[in-house]
């Protein structure tokens, strides 16, 4: 036991106060963001296949696709923000100096993909999210 530990053991209070979390904390996974990006692309494909609806049922389907696409794009942004803000720590920046740019870029791409019906935009988002997920997994190696 070094001196610091000895002093700490002398000063240690008897009581413990918990700054606790009952939910499973510290569990991070890029899967949800990737799934969201995939959903955006899938919805673009479905919207393209649907074409211009001619009846109420078609309009309802289109509305569902659009709503789902926008929700998925927002989900991507939310999940990437959690990984970027909560999971990644300063030492990771040394490993990935462009981490902030990558996260920022995803916000922009997701915003664009949310507003457009472009498979290219969706693919760009997916590629950026996959790259971000790779960084996540590399940081754990």
């Amino acid at each position, binding site marked *: 036991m070094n001196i610091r530990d000895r002093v*700490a053991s002398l000063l240690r*209070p008897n*009581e413990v*106060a918990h700054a*606790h979390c*009952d*939910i499973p904390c510290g569990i991070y996974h890029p899967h949800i963001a990737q799934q969201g990006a995939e959903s955006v692309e899938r919805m673009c494909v479905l919207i393209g296949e649907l074409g211009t609806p001619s009846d109420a049922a078609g309009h309802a389907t289109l509305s569902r696709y659009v709503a789902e696409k926008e929700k998925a794009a927002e989900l991507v942004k939310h999940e990437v923000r959690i990984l970027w*803000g909560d999971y990644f720590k300063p030492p990771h920046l040394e490993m990935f100096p462009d981490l902030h740019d990558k996260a920022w870029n995803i916000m922009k791409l997701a915003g664009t993909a949310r507003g457009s019906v472009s498979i290219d935009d969706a693919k760009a988002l997916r590629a950026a999210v996959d790259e971000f997920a790779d960084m996540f997994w590399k940081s754990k190696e």
Partner: protein
Amino acid sequence: MLAALAAMCSLRGRYYRVEVAGDSMRPTLRPGEFLVLRRGAPAPGRVDPGSIVALHDATGRLILKRVIGLPGESLRVGRSVLINRRPLIETYAQGETPQAQFRGANQLAEDEYFLIGDNRGASTDSRDFGPVRRERIEGTAAFRYWPLRRLGRIGTPRREFGTAAADDLPLGMIRARTGN
């Protein structure tokens, strides 16, 4: 000598020490730090917003959380905290409230306080168990004495609000808008 002993005894009654366990008060409090707490519930109207308080939770554990909402205030926790519709600027907090913990109170009742851990992505607090009545507060964090390099008073940050009326802007954007 006797006077010093008497002073120490009286201090022991008014203050007590705890060791911090867990991560939910990061970055303010880290696990393994030793604190001095002022004993007892503060007097009515004397609970400072931003102070860190200790109380026993339903499982009997002593827990530490920060006072965010005061009696009479309306409060909403989304990506940021809105108090009476104004975004609270929280320089002490880190992370983001998970969607599953988005909560609010139309109005906190008399003597009710809303407590949240500083580590927003990893804390169980009023977002889960609801507001807490004043009499349940058992202590207020006053001082950190270990590790020595982080020794010092545990202050109460000045309460500041952003001017943005937006409901759910990320904290960073609110800071940018208000120039903080």
